[in-house]
């Protein structure tokens, strides 16, 4: 019976609304007081039923909920034969709950989209060797699963046969399909675009990367900041206090009308829902844009950020050196490039890889002899020619004459922070290449946006020499840049900012050797391609290590923090206004109070919903 009534709450609201309409038309239109009284009394009894049941259940577990206040108020109004008030208050309360439910679902929609991407079933190999469809919960580590074209990968695993291409957007945010073959790792929640594969399950359920992302987001949206915990504690004592106040007013003034009005007006209403709504909408927006925010504490800190500290290699730069500038001298350059590639092919030096990648397709010649000159480079015999590949010192040792033009180029390349690779053929300089770790495309614009959003200092810390660091810093327009720093120097630097300068600091690093700094900073952001480490160590996770999501993340946390404050102001303002007007005005009554309450709840939810559409202005 109780459950039947509760599950029909929305119908009850509708019927009680109709009864109220009948009551008022007969009273005002037909002057028929008897019908009016009966209709309104019926609406009250019907409407209060689900509220009273909820109140009873709450009291059973020792909670004085809003339902308790409303039930007492309605019963009181009924008792003094004020059916008009009792009917309207119950109707507004039920109808308000209905609207809250609808709008609240909207604010949660972004995260729901994410969780609905979770795989539900899998084709599992049974003891007889056949594949059978089972629920994803029934898959254990080590099981063999079959995945067909168009299906979701059910668990994290390794491909054991077949090949195909997989869209990993749900994990990495990257929408280009990745091809997979035997031995490749596949992730739960990603989609097999074409091909058929068999995989062995390595991690299942909540242990998969996707499972961890979902758990993180779910916990984040319900995590509470200090302010929220305060409101919760406050609300716990607030409702009983309102009840007590109502009773005291009744005892001393013997005015039931006033006492029950206080019960309705004192409902905490928008206060308890305002902040969570902003939180869930903000985190939902982030999840849609590849930014996972770990809870409202993170939102609070990040929105008040003073200083952002970056690791250089792999964060601001791509992390793999490549040829940035090159110059050719004299004739037969193609031939010289072929010789260079042939020599570099034998080497595993990082610069050699960059050079080879830059040359690309060429004609390789057999290398007849090689001699490695320590601190210089390589001297080799290729096709009867003497080839020297290395730095300026090696050229001098080989007696290669450098023209004025070449000397100027070398100076220029060095100033730009390049490592130099010179190539001579038979004692004549042919090729000059400048190799450096290049800045990530778009980073400069992103840093500018961060600055515009109010980050005061952009600092770079790096293990590289100060010269290289200065070049990058100048190019990016950073506030400060420090080179020659070990991981412990970096964390000491951050500690000083936090403890001595009382700044709010974020650290962006690769998540592997910078973990002390990540842990120390108020906000740690690891740039590790959506991996476990990045997810676990970061306070803000950027999907696919996409640096360009950083400004969005910062803008979003600022908007969310603002939104929370607005909602608190609205909620507190409404309660103060209502309580003040009951004592100082003539027109305030239960119905108006309930209307204002329900309206304020909708206002804070709608305000929170704005965050779902938040986008950083370019």
């Amino acid at each position, binding site marked *: 019976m109780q459950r039947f009534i509760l599950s029909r709450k929305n119908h009850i609201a509708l019927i009680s609304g109709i009864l109220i309409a009948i009551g008022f038309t007969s009273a005002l239109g037909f002057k028929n007081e008897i019908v009016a009284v009966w209709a309104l009394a019926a609406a009250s009894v019907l409407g209060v039923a689900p509220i009273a049941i909820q109140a009873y259940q709450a009291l059973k577990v020792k909670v004085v909920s809003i339902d308790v206040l409303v039930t007492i108020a309605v019963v009181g109004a009924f008792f003094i034969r004020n059916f008009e008030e009792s009917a309207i208050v119950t109707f507004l309360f039920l109808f308000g709950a209905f609207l*809250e439910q609808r709008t609240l679902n909207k604010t949660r929609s972004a995260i729901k989209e994410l969780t609905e991407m979770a795989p539900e079933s899998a084709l599992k190999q049974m003891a007889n060797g056949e594949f059978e469809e089972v629920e994803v919960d029934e898959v254990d580590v080590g099981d063999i699963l079959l995945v067909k074209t168009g299906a979701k990968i059910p668990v994290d695993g390794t491909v054991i046969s077949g090949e195909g291409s997989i869209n990993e957007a749900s994990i990495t945010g990257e929408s280009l399909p990745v091809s997979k073959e035997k031995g490749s790792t596949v992730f739960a929640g990603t989609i097999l675009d074409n091909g058929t594969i068999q995989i062995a399950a390595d991690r299942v359920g909540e242990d998969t990367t996707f499972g961890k992302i979902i758990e993180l987001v779910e916990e984040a949206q*319900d995590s509470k900041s200090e302010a929220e915990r305060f409101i919760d504690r406050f609300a716990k004592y607030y409702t009983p206090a309102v009840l007590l106040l109502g009773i005291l007013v009744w005892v001393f003034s013997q005015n039931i009308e006033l006492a029950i009005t206080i019960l309705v007006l004192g409902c905490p209403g928008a206060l308890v829902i305002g902040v969570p709504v902003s939180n869930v909408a903000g985190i939902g927006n982030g999840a849609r844009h590849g930014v996972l925010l770990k809870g409202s504490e993170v939102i609070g800190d990040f929105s008040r950020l003073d200083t952002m500290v970056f690791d250089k290699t792999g964060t601001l730069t791509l992390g793999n050196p490549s040829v940035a500038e090159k110059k050719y001298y004299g004739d037969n350059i193609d031939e010289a490039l072929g010789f260079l590639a042939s020599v570099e092919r034998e080497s595993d030096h990082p610069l050699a890889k960059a050079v080879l990648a830059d040359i690309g397709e060429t004609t390789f010649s057999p290398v007849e002899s090689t001699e490695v000159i320590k601190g210089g480079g390589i001297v080799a015999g290729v096709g009867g020619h003497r080839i020297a590949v290395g730095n300026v010192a090696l050229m001098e040792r080989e007696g290669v004459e450098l023209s004025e033009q070449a000397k100027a180029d070398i100076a220029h390349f060095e100033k730009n922070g390049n490592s130099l690779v010179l190539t001579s053929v038979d004692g004549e300089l042919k090729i000059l290449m400048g190799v450096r770790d290049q800045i990530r495309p778009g980073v400069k614009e992103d840093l500018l946006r961060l600055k515009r959003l109010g980050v005061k200092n952009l600092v770079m810390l790096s293990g590289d020499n100060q010269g290289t660091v200065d070049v990058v810093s100048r190019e990016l327009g950073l506030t400060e840049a420090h080179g020659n720093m070990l991981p412990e120097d970096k964390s000491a630097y951050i500690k000083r900012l936090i403890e001595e300068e009382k700044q709010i600091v974020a650290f962006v690093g690769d998540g592997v050797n910078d973990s002390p700094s990540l842990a120390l900073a108020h906000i740690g952001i690891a740039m590790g391609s959506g991996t476990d480490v990045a997810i676990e160590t970061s306070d803000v996770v950027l999907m696919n290590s996409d640096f360009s999501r950083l400004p969005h993340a910062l803008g979003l946390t600022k908007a969310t923090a603002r939104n929370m404050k607005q909602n608190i102001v609205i909620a507190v303002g409404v309660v103060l206004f209502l309580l003040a007007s009951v004592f100082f005005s003539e027109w305030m009554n239960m119905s108006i109070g309930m209307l204002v309450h329900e309206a304020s709840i909708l206002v804070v939810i709608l305000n929170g919903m704005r965050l779902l559409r938040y986008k950083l202005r370019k």
Partner: protein
Amino acid sequence: MKKATIQLDTLTCPSCVQKIENATKSLSGVDKESVKVLFNSSKLKFDFDDDKLSVEDVEKAITALGYDVKKSQVKAK
């Protein structure tokens, strides 16, 4: 000790959270410290002693409060 996650019907009022939390904590065998009601994802998470009670007991207590249980999962801790 086992770890349970119960997926509830959509929760819409913050006071529901308190009711469910108190109801779960009042059952003996449930680790009070571990009880967590996730309002937005409408989930109840808690650790319990499987010698003293089963997850069905908790489900029953919550259904009695008027909230539907959609799915529950128990894992060894």
